[in-house]
């Protein structure tokens, strides 16, 4: 057969492999839309920002807002809560990183890098274990040993800076990007 070149295979072999390869590419090209359709659509990706009025929040109180479909914790901390968060050695924490969207990824989890203004702690209220909303600790109704939050689903306890201290959650509660528009209004996102 013309075009046969010894061990390199025949023209028929080439056509066989090339057809198979094209077929595989075709299957992958058809499969991708069927897989990718499950990802968030452009509408879901077009995330909004939320402006939140925090004037009504009293010291020691937390209010939960909804931001991008997720709970957003805004907690006005008491001086004692701020003090207890500052007293912790960052290197002794299970997760020593700030997890603050406004800071570099390697920022340490000091209280200052968790809360831009010490009195105000703004967090995504999603437990980093399996996504439950942790319950907030108050002097009347403590939740966990660290004065912050306790997730009742699987027992993760967070401190007054929202840092993981005990339990299965791998990382600190996330701090979203936010700015103070005035002393009583913040813009999240």
């Amino acid at each position, binding site marked *: 057969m013309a075009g046969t070149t010894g061990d390199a295979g025949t023209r028929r072999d080439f056509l066989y492999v090339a057809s198979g390869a094209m077929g595989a590419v075709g299957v992958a090209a058809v499969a991708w839309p069927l*897989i990718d359709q499950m*990802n*968030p659509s452009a509408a879901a990706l077009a995330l909004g920002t939320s402006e939140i009025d925090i004037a009504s929040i009293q010291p020691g109180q937390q209010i939960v807002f*909804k931001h*991008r479909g997720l709970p957003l914790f805004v907690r006005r901390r008491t001086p004692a809560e701020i003090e207890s968060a500052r007293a912790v050695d960052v290197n002794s924490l299970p997760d020593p990183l700030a997890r603050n969207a406004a800071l570099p990824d390697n920022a340490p989890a000091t209280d200052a890098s968790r809360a831009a203004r010490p009195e105000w702690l703004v967090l995504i209220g999603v437990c*980093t274990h399996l*996504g439950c*909303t*942790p319950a907030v600790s108050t002097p009347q109704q403590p939740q966990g040993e660290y004065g912050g939050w306790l997730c009742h689903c699987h027992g993760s306890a967070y401190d007054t800076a929202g840092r993981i201290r005990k339990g299965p959650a791998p990382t600190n509660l996330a701090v979203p990007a936010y700015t103070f528009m005035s002393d009583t209004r913040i813009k999240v996102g």
Partner: protein
Amino acid sequence: MSGPSTYNPKSGIEKWIDSRLPLPRLMHDTMSTFPTPRNLNIWYTFGGILTFCLAVQIVTGIVLAMHYVASANLAFGSVEAIMRDVNYGWLIRYVHANGASMFFLAVYIHMFRGLYYGSYKAPRELIWIIGVLIYLLMTATAFFGYVLPWGQMSFWGATVITNMFSAVPVVGQAIATWLWGDFAVGDATLNRFFSLHYLLPFIIAGVVGLHIWALHVPGNNNPLGIDVKSPQDTLPFHPYYTVKDAFYLVCFVILFAGFVFYEPDFFGNPDNYQPANPLVTPPEIVPEWYLLPFYAMLRSVPDKLLGVIVMAGAILTLVFIPWLDTSRVRSCRFRPLMKQFFWAFTVVCVILGYCGAQSVEATAFGIPLVWVARIATLYYFAYFWLIMPIVGLIETPKKLPASIAQSVLGDSAAKPAE
């Protein structure tokens, strides 16, 4: 499905069909004359009961889908409308909801029976593995179904289970987002779960076909765990086992109806009668009872990724049982040592289920339940990976009977009578 056929078409129509589509022949050979060990006991009737359960779920499910609306805003209300407005909607939904629990009750009995009598051992390894696959499909289907009413437990159960995928290193969060179709469980998630909940039962039906096909090659195992040696050891499936299966099916349906008509919310969680609220997690999240042992394992590990690995490993382990059991004797009836470990294993599974139902900080007799769950989890894995291989080697089994017929009928009757 295998072996020589005994079908003998008589009328012209039967012959005409048989030579074109031998479906009557298939039915005849698998359901009528199929030789079945004569000593099968009550625990062998659960295969038929499970087929019944699958049929009930599919029929009631198709009807419910005619009234259900898969939308985050409308789903809860549409389920309430089924309960209050749709003619007999309350009955159909309660049958479907309790049917899921009955299905799992039956499948657990079926699985423990297989474990006790060594039904996974050669030459039935593939029957067992296909069975594990069916069980996996069942848990997925049940999970999707539990999300549909869009109550508090639906929503937070979906959140917790889908977040497990975020434990996968590097791509975990992307997988979770892909499953949700959003940045949290929401409308998109509910719609796809409904689609999959409708699809999977038909996949299960197909895999059940494979399960039965594989069963009909070596035939049934039996409580003695010895092979069928002569036609005397067997009875035709019909009428002997069709009648036996039917009798126990009726008993099972009485229990089923008891729950549906007298305690329809027995297996349910009151929190699921509250519409889903993405901002408030209920104080206690518990899965349905049939997943509690695995949930207890997840919670007993204080690390996210390891917890998920342990939980997935607990189910995956089942696939390897045919090769982990080193004993040459199938049935625990002749395995005095393994029998004790088996019953301990059964108790451990119940203990795990109990632990999974309690809060994370609960104690029993002053012992934190999380430690009880840890020890129980350890036993669960040790049972398959250590006890099964070791006991199989060191144990001296009791003497096996010469044949099924001899064991059932006694020495004299077992001799060929003709």
